[in-house]
């Protein structure tokens, strides 16, 4: 029993430390956003020849080495491409053009590269559309829980399940910020799925508890005339 309590304490302490560490990382470094989410350079080039994206990716790997990049095809004619990268140096530009000329037998110059600085997507802008629908869902589900689990301690049940879901989300957020997982739409969606799964889990748990209470009630409940006789019979007995 004591060892159980101790392990519980250790887990709680670990979780608190994890959240604190997450908070420190977020306050110092911020959340790590994916390349296309964050501020980056977009390099466009119209080659005038059919572009093979495999070759472009190979060139990018050679030129940018460890740097993260995303190469995409531009337009529908298949003769242009776009490389998205955090930043690009003059040497890398020259190297990139040389390698492209070499592989595609073109005579492009660094001036042909169309470079745009693309600002970051704000996380609040991405999260904002989700807030109202998620709140509406939480309110409706909470009302449902109040009604469904009225035979249990409904308020306690709702508060308990809500704070546990919120805590799970905070823990996940801490893990994401400590491990520096690049945040994008998909990560936000996974957070949402965790919240949904949490809701389903607690309702499932609630249903089990409710079934238990109902079966206990059935066992404890004294013999009831109302259940076993119709009105006429009751009248007759009363008489």
């Amino acid at each position, binding site marked *: 029993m004591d060892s159980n309590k101790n392990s519980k304490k250790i887990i709680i302490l670990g979780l608190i430390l994890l959240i604190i560490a997450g908070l420190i990382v977020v306050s110092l470094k911020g959340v790590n956003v994916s390349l296309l989410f964050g501020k980056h350079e977009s390099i*466009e080039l119209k080659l005038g020849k059919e572009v093979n*994206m495999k070759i472009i990716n190979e060139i990018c790997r050679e030129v940018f080495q460890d740097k993260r990049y995303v*190469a995409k095809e531009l337009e529908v004619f298949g003769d242009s491409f776009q490389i998205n990268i955090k930043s690009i140096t003059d040497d890398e530009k020259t190297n990139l053009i040389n390698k492209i000329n070499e592989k595609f037998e073109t005579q492009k110059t660094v001036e042909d590269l169309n470079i745009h600085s693309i600002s970051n997507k*704000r996380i609040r802008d991405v999260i904002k559309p989700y807030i109202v*629908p998620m709140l509406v869902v939480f309110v409706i589900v909470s009302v449902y829980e109040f009604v469904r689990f009225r035979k249990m301690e409904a308020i306690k049940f709702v508060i308990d399940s809500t704070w546990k879901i919120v805590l799970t989300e905070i823990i996940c957020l801490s893990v994401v910020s400590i491990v520096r997982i690049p945040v994008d739409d998909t990560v936000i969606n996974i957070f949402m*799925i965790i919240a*949904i799964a949490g809701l389903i889990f607690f309702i499932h748990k609630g*249903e089990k508890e409710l079934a238990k209470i109902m079966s206990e009630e059935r066992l404890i409940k004294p013999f009831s005339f109302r259940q076993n006789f119709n009105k006429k019979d009751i009248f007759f007995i009363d008489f």
Partner: protein
Amino acid sequence: MKKIKEIVMILIVILLSIIAFFGVFTKENGIWKNHLPDVSYGMDLKGARELIYVVSNKEDEKYVYVDEAGNIKGEVWKEGKAITEDDEKSSSEETTEGDGQEETTNSEETKTSDTNEVPYTKETRTIKKNPDDVMNKKNFEQSKKIIQKRLKEQGIDEYHIRIDDITGKIVIENASDNEEVSRIEQLVANPGKFQIIDYQTGVVLMDNSDIKQASVVYSNNETYQTYLQIQFNKAGSEKLKEISNQYIEIKEETQEVPKEENTETTEEDTDKETEKKYVSIVFDDTTMMTTYFGEEMANGILQISVGQARTEHKDFMEDYNSAKTIADMLNTGVLPVTYELETDNFVKSAITEAMLETLKIVVIIAIIIISLILIIKFKKKGALAAVLNIGYIALLSIVLRYAKVEITINAMISLIFVMGINVVFLKMFLQKCQISNNGEAYKQVCKEFYLTIVPLIVIAIVFTLTQYYAINSIGMVIFWGIFLQGLYNLLLTKTLLNNRKD
């Protein structure tokens, strides 16, 4: 009889699977054509139009009216056209030279009044599209908000917008067709500046600050005529009333001349000189119309006809939509910063078709593994459940295509989630069948299962009703997933697995 029913149902499941995974092909003009619609992918999978807008740095020298405080009160116009200081000097010289040489006018003539006294000084100024004082973070943010509002009003939800706080550069990614992209271009590149200008002089009489609300109305009298209806605020209404009394047609009786001296009758004709004072209604430096008022506008509402009277619905809708665009721009306010389009590219998704094929293979392998687990654990019933599960996925795939549900990465995750939920249902059902095989198993499992997934049902409804495309597609996938799961399991799974003895 029961056996035949079961065989028919299994055949239906197989048929559904064949249709969903291989398509329905017929030969048309020698070409095989698939009648099953393609999956509609969202912009994160299909690609997007990327519009890059930069802050305009254009500047023009303009001859303008300036009030005592130094504010510009309009460009100097002559007969509806902006003139320069030189133009004015040369024309005044010509007028001086030509004095007294003007021919006497005809019996009835129309001329515009040029007798206006403008209480402002005139000077030539270099006017920047974006003066230095507007180039700040606050105005860039304000512009972004206005653009977002405009896009919302126009029902454009599938886009991402980024703004650079320092340069003001705006990047809009949109997954739509050319028609919608051109609307976006219009909404971003047009500041939404509305002016009623004195046609004779060029003095601005009214502007956006006088507008309360703009809307689109139409008259339906054999033909359809679209009107842009502008309701002015209190100050604007007063101005409109005043303008409508000033800019009118004035007929003055000038002289009475006997028509023909020789005629017997003493009939006399009255010569009339008609003087009209016009106003120009200008939207973003483009004159929408030049007119004068026929009556006093006391109600503070101005109706401007857009296009012509139309008999074709398509033409009418074009007029209506362009009027709606202007109304939305007027309602959302003037962009503090003027933008111009730098580039417009279609950028394909970084997720290639090969990646999607790989994902499909992974899902197929997962389905095979789940099927094997079901078969090993529940034997014949498990095998039937595996076939039924494949049938459900096939049906869901067909319905999502016909319902034109946009599949984004997030919708894909939701799809996998919904497919997983069906497996959970089947597992619960098979387990219950092992315990109680009295035909009640389905009912009991349904009660337990659907009471548990209430949050998912709520999410399906709320998200489906949400406009934002990324949330809507998740909602649609979950909605169709749960709805079809209920229907499919009631019609097929229940019949095939309930009361069945291995």
